[in-house]
């Protein structure tokens, strides 16, 4: 569909000529996205190209651009740090403005007393954490790591991370937010709507934020979030990290009121019991099954290699055969990381005592090698700043997360064997990294206080190899088939694959959901707030009566 050049000129007038481009190579830098090769025709690494990339500097500019897009019927896809194929335009031949929010990058304020920060979309978690720490505060960093946008995880997508167990899910940490709707109106939610400041996300009356957030979030498919306030938590540590060591394995000494442990379990029952005991006892500042992302067969060899700056990945092969490493690996096979923090030395000693008792009761243990100084400090650094999250890709450059169905520890334990077995089988093609069937990673809890999380298989494939890409796609399909066979809800792989499906195929699947109320709601809500349909299908909806018998269908 041809868009009038007037639209481009109008946008230039708003943001300045230097802040908009339709240069093809520039557009490709937004079309190119991780995971595109799994869903696009011919394994293309490019999602659809945007019609233009626009960089607004303010809410007012976002509004003005949105209004131009309404006039010319151009879709809008906001992007902040921009990671995941669904950050890109969704469909070919559907002109889309990629709204790159990197110029909106201010920490507007940190209210130290009331413990919240007001941020723009391009503030990343690491920046906010660094500033918050100066004030004895901390922020929840989501599982995708500290290079991610605070606004994105608070307003538009999931929001759980290793620190959620103590600091809460970013959806619950969201306070006031500023939302430019698809027609260019500004909606301020919660206390902001009454001019009472940013401190409360609920209400007035029913919470307006309820239409913009949910669990999955609108993922850029329903307007643009231009600011939000986020609740901060206590940080009982120093005002900045005194990082030691050389890249890549930076280390953070463990303070006297902190502990950094890797806890191992003899079996999954014990692991689940340990989780429940940790919840019941209110332990854990950061709680995550992180280091297993490398695969339980290879994790120890990898991390010991990684923290040595003189080594290469070739050394992993040698180390993985070392009997001593194999023995450590077995201890760490079913393990997770736990960072404790207390206000006082008395407090941390008591937490140690409680943890030891939990371990004794559940048959779990501290994995000794991982708790030695070098690994403990590396673990501490990794978990506190979450700046190594792209080690997800360390093996071959590609990673896709499958499974991740969320529930209680017992629920998750229930699908673990199937997930492990299936992944082991898929690795036999040699077209995925053979790290063992257990490369499951996940938060201790994505909800504050505990009790809920999912485990995600880290499937490592080579995006430069067509065969490896195909093997990854096959794994996703196998995982779906396994879930269907076991009567399990479908996992993250479905969300990824759907990006490459037609609308009709997606709707056919949605129509089979046991409850379609929210999809009907979202259709009607979209019709009301996005009459020109500028938001894409990242905000999912179901056409009226889709999938029902013809006599009843419209």
């Amino acid at each position, binding site marked *: 569909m041809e868009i009038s050049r007037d639209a481009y000129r109008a946008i230039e007038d708003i943001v300045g000529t230097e802040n908009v481009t339709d240069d093809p190579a520039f557009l490709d830098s937004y079309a190119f996205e991780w995971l595109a090769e799994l869903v696009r025709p011919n394994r293309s690494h490019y999602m659809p190209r945007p019609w233009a990339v626009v960089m607004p500097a303010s809410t007012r500019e976002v509004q003005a651009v949105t209004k131009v897009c309404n006039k010319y019927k151009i879709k809008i896809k906001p992007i902040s740090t921009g990671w995941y194929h669904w950050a890109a335009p969704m469909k070919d031949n559907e002109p889309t403005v990629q709204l790159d929010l990197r110029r909106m990058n201010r920490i507007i304020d940190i209210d130290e007393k009331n413990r919240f920060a007001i941020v723009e979309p391009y503030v990343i978690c690491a920046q906010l954490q660094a500033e918050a720490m100066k004030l*004895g505060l901390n922020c929840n960093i989501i599982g995708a790591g500290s290079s991610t946008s605070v606004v994105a995880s608070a307003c538009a997508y999931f929001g759980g991370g290793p620190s959620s167990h103590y600091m809460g899910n970013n959806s619950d940490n969201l306070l006031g937010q500023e939302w430019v709707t698809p027609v260019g109106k500004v909606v301020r939610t919660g206390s902001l709507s009454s001019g009472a400041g940013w401190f*409360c996300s*609920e*209400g007035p009356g029913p919470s307006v934020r309820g239409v913009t957030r949910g*669990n999955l979030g609108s993922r850029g498919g329903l307007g643009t979030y231009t600011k939000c306030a986020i609740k901060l938590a206590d940080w009982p540590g120093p005002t900045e990290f005194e990082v030691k060591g050389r890249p890549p394995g930076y280390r953070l000494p463990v303070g006297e009121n902190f502990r950094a442990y890797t806890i191992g379990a003899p079996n999954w029952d014990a692991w689940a019991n340990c989780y429940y005991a940790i919840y019941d006892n209110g332990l854990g500042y950061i709680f995550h099954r992180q280091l297993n992302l490398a695969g339980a067969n290879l994790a120890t060899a990898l991390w010991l290699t990684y923290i040595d700056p003189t080594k290469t990945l070739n050394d992993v092969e040698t180390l993985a055969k070392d009997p001593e490493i194999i023995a450590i690996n077995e201890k760490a096979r079913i393990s997770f990381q736990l960072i404790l923090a207390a206000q006082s030395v008395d407090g941390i000693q008591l937490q140690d005592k409680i943890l030891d*008792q939990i371990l004794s009761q559940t048959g779990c243990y501290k994995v000794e090698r991982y708790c030695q100084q070098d690994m403990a400090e590396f673990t501490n650094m990794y978990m506190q700043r979450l700046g190594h999250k792209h080690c997800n890709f360390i093996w071959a450059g590609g990673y896709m997360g499958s499974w991740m169905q969320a529930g209680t520890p017992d629920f998750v334990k229930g699908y673990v064997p199937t997930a492990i077995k299936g992944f082991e089988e898929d690795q036999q093609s040699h077209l995925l990294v053979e790290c063992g069937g257990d490369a499951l990673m996940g938060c201790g809890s994505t909800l504050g206080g505990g009790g809920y999380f999912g485990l995600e298989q880290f499937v490592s494939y080579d995006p430069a190899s067509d065969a490896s890409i195909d093997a990854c796609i096959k794994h996703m399909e196998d995982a779906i088939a396994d879930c269907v066979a076991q009567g399990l809800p479908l996992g993250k792989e479905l969300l990824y694959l759907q990006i490459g499906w037609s609308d009709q195929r997606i709707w056919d699947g949605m129509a089979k959901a046991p409850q379609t109320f929210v999809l009907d709601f979202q259709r009607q*809500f979209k019709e009301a707030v996005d009459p020109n349909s500028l938001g894409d299908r990242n905000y999912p909806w179901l056409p009226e009566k889709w999938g029902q018998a013809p006599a009843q269908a419209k």
Partner: protein
Amino acid sequence: METKRRQLAAIVGEDNVLDDPKILEEFSSDESLCEPLRPWFVVRPANESEVQALVKWANTTVTPLVPVSSGAPHFYGDTVPTVAEAVIVDLSRMKEIKRIDRRNRIAVIEPGVTYSELAPALAREGLRIPRPLAPRANKSVVASLLERQPTTIPRLNFSLPEPLRNCGVVWGSGDLAFTGEAGNGPLNLEAQWQRGLAQVDGKGPLATDLMRLVTGAQGSMGIVIWASIKLELIPTVRSYFFVPHSELSGLVDFIYKLTKVRLGDETLLLNRAKLAALVEPQPAAARKLREALPEWVALVGLAGTALFPEERLKVQEKEFRALVQEFRLTLCGGFAGVSRADVVRLIDGDSGDHPPTLTAKGASQDIFFLTTLDKAPGLIETVRSVAARFDYPWPDVGIYVQPQHQGVAHHVEFNFPYDPSDAKEVAKARDIYLEASAELIDQGAYFSRPYGYWSELVYQRDASSTEILRTVKQIVDPTNIMNPGKLCF
């Protein structure tokens, strides 16, 4: 009318359709100063299918429904019809505690379950839920949570709706759908439990937070027929402390620090009038007690739970005392006239059938809002000046400040006792309510639960939010049969 009566009886049974004038009179007004309006019927459904049938019937006949879960007295006008020909849907028969899941610490209950009914059932499993301050005995747990009534343990308050998680809702359209995690699974709780799902995550499904659309809604979106709630362990050992001060501002920094480091369980601030009224049911005795109390107290409960409870308590007490000292405050275990048993009753018990706010003079005009703690003293001053303007005796005003959301938001509440049989006092109470509310919102108070007049103040301030809420209402209750006339609807 008779036709409707028959139709209703066919749904809930003859005995559960009430139109006795005395009963209707009880529902036609409440303790607030809202305009009375008599409903036509009170119906008492027993289960989900009856509720759904009622809502479908209401859509067909365009009959307003007003859901009520708690027993009387009611306080904020939300359970009084605003339009004529309304039917009160009294959910108090729905009293099933469907499940108590100790391992996952989730309970699923129906709306008629009260705090006094739930507490012993939970206690048998060693569990409890964070509670509001001294709820009345017949207060519905689900209603309290849906209203976002503040609970007394801020460190557990990861979000304002906590501990509310999922809801089963018969929406105003007549559709039955679950919120949150439950919204992704089968439309049947047993089927979900069989799959190992436990209705834990409150968010969603998808991009909509359906639970948040029914909280604070005053029954205007749908009828909640069950709710899952997060539970906590009962402490093994506890201690309580009062930290007194002549001014609220003298306690602000201390409370900020306390909630920041999440030390302690119950954490609340009461002025002398409020504390006296809570403890002493006899008005004269309450007035006498009031004179002997400090102007303000912070009441803090420390608890030792799960493993090594005594040691936990010991460490907490040490840290607590250090904190009190850091802020140059004093500490006491109690006051003359306020025993430990009184405190336990406030924290863990209920106020029986006689809400403390009514004991002084028979009625109370309440004003409450959310703010940040640093603004609270200034906003209290605003209310004081309004009270002075109307010659209301300030020492009679009960004030309660409850940290919420782990100390970010604070509920600030004023109780103005008045004699409902004295027209002048009634007028004064109303005038104070109206004038103070208008000044408060101008100074940044947030009426997050906009009952009555507050809804006018709030929704006029922001057209965009109002428009969004009306859009939502239009979708989930297209015939506008759910408590019409409330909020901005």
